């Protein structure tokens, strides 16, 4: 048997394609989370942002027939949640975790309610035709890399572009320096003429846009349908990815790929009658998340002001 035949084997091809498809949503959510956390805000609401993006994107695409309009509005829905979170955490200096959890719980109900309101309680699940895979000529035929990177839907390519883009923003642009300043030492940032409130609000909006894109990817690229609570904890997994990737875009991409691989592996495992009860396979990404937290928690350095609300001291 040809020792390298497995790389062109259709099963392997499918596995690699699936790895990327499953990695992208959590990678996007984690990238969104990165902007918030680097600015010092714990964004627990990633889950709710994704769910809002998935639902809004789907409903818009279904109603308008335009996938792109769906993507745009899905991202906007995430951004709106970002604004709500900013109002609470920046303006009211509420506990960032509490608000995030409340938003997540509410979004489960809100998307479910709106779904029934729009599509009725019928059993027939509405569908849209998702973004088809676009093979990039020549590159798509490279073994392993081809199925991983070049046989994907167009949103995957968009996500790929976001990685270097985020890196440039954070390490080369004055915006990235300002975000770092706000996340590390908000009082100093204020003396430097940087508005902590504005930077944090913008970061949460960016966070919502990107996490919303991750959600829209689930409904418009990965599946073509919307299901209640379809994010299934991916927003929380993204928080672990963020730690594992050290809040750095490249690290996040690599960490997300690991999770995508685990997820693809368990899906394959279900399909091939391995004899392992499927529940144990489905557990895999959740167990992996815990393993990652055990291995990497406390290793990297958190932004000094992470989770700490900032209040300007002013005389009244």
């Amino acid at each position, binding site marked *: 048997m040809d020792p390298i035949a497995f790389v062109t084997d259709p099963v392997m091809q499918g596995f690699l394609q699936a790895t990327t498809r499953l990695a992208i949503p959590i990678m996007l959510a984690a990238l969104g989370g990165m902007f918030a956390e680097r600015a010092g805000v714990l964004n627990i609401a990633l889950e709710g942002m994704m769910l809002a993006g998935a639902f809004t994107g789907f409903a818009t695409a279904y109603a308008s027939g335009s996938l792109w309009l769906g993507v745009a509005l899905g991202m906007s829905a995430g951004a709106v949640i970002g604004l709500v979170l900013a109002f609470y955490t920046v303006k009211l200096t509420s506990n960032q975790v509490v608000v995030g959890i409340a938003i997540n*719980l509410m979004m489960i109900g809100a998307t479910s309610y709106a779904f029934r309101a729009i599509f009725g309680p019928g059993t027939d699940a509405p569908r849209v035709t998702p973004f088809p895979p676009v093979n990039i000529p020549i590159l798509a035929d490279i073994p392993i890399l081809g199925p991983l990177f070049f046989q994907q839907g167009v949103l995957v390519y968009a996500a790929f572009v976001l990685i270097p883009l985020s890196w440039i923003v954070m390490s080369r642009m004055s915006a990235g320096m300002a975000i770092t300043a706000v996340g590390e030492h908000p009082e100093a940032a204020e003396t430097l003429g940087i508005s902590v409130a504005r930077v944090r609000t913008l970061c949460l909006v960016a966070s919502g846009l990107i996490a919303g894109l991750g959600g829209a990817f689930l409904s418009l690229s990965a599946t073509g349908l919307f299901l209640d609570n379809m994010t299934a904890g991916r927003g929380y*997994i993204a928080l672990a990815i963020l730690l594992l990737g050290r809040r750095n875009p490249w690290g996040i991409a690599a960490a997300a790929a690991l999770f995508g691989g685990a997820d693809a592996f368990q899906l394959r495992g279900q399909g091939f009658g391995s004899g392992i009860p499927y529940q144990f396979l489905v557990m895999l990404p959740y167990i992996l998340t815990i393993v990652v937290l055990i291995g990497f928690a406390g290793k990297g350095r958190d932004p000094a002001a992470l989770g700490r609300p900032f209040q300007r001291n002013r005389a009244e």
Partner: protein
Amino acid sequence: MSSSEAAGPSPSSALAGRSEFVSSLLAVVLALAVGAVLILAWGASPVTAYAALLDGAFGSWNSLGETLLRAIPLTFTGLAIAIAFRGGTFNLGAEGQLFLGATAAAWVGLAIPTLPAPLLIPAMIVTAAFVGALWSLLAGVLKLRFGANELITTIMLNYIAILFVSYLLRGPLQEAAGYLPQTERLSANARFPALIAGTRLHLGFLLALAAVVLAHIALWHTSWGFKLRVVGLNARAALNAGYNVRLLTLSAFVVSGVLAGLAGYMEVVGVQRRMIENLSPGFGYTGIIVALLGQTSPFGVLAAAILFAGLQVGGSTMQTASGVPSTLTTIIQGLVVLFVIGRGAVDLFLARRGAK
């Protein structure tokens, strides 16, 4: 949390006299108002829908019984989360602890069904509490030993627990008939007697009330509760004062897990009479907002649990009567909490008005 170094009073202190109860009530009213808009958007009459909701929740002895029945697990999960919260930890794992506690209790009940009730019931209670505590303790150990954030680990442990229970109910613990993912029915010895004739309300409600009183005493009248609250407010000061902070944190996880496990037990013996795959419609998660609305005080938790139970029970009636999906009540619950947290906005607004 935010320690303002500026001298002088904070903007809200002028309004400190306003009771938290009033602002919670205001939050409920506001959330219901937003809900009314959503009902209108659905195309139904808010008056009809809310009338049905109210009737379904509190309109008769039977519906009141159903509401209080629903309040039992919410009280337990709400207390579980409130106590963890007081100790400075976010236990989002009540859902998984509930499922495992319930399954373990059902297993004991099915393994020794002929044991007399005075022995069987305590055996099941202890098992549910023990297993819930173990699962919760796992998150506590991960936090203390490895620094793994319990926010994420408890959510992950929920998924793992629920999947594991699903495996058990479709495998080793499945009923003999083998149709549904559920266990056999529990024997009569394992069940609770009804509290009010003609309703499903059972003895568990009294146990929930007892848990509320015990939690109140523990938090405010024991040195354990005192130290736990200190740890929650300032763990470093607690350490400096000579407390065993790790042990206190673990104890918060354990107590929290015990209460969540008991929530599952109550559902198994009082409602389903067996373990089923969909035992909880998110009691563990609703418990989070019950705890928040109840200001993490045990009596507040009880009131919030009854309120949310009424919303949920009435929600089904509302759906039948007006077609408005009962998931509306999930939105209202979330809004209530956001408005309660947002009362700072009202203070800010009033302070600004007052300054002019």
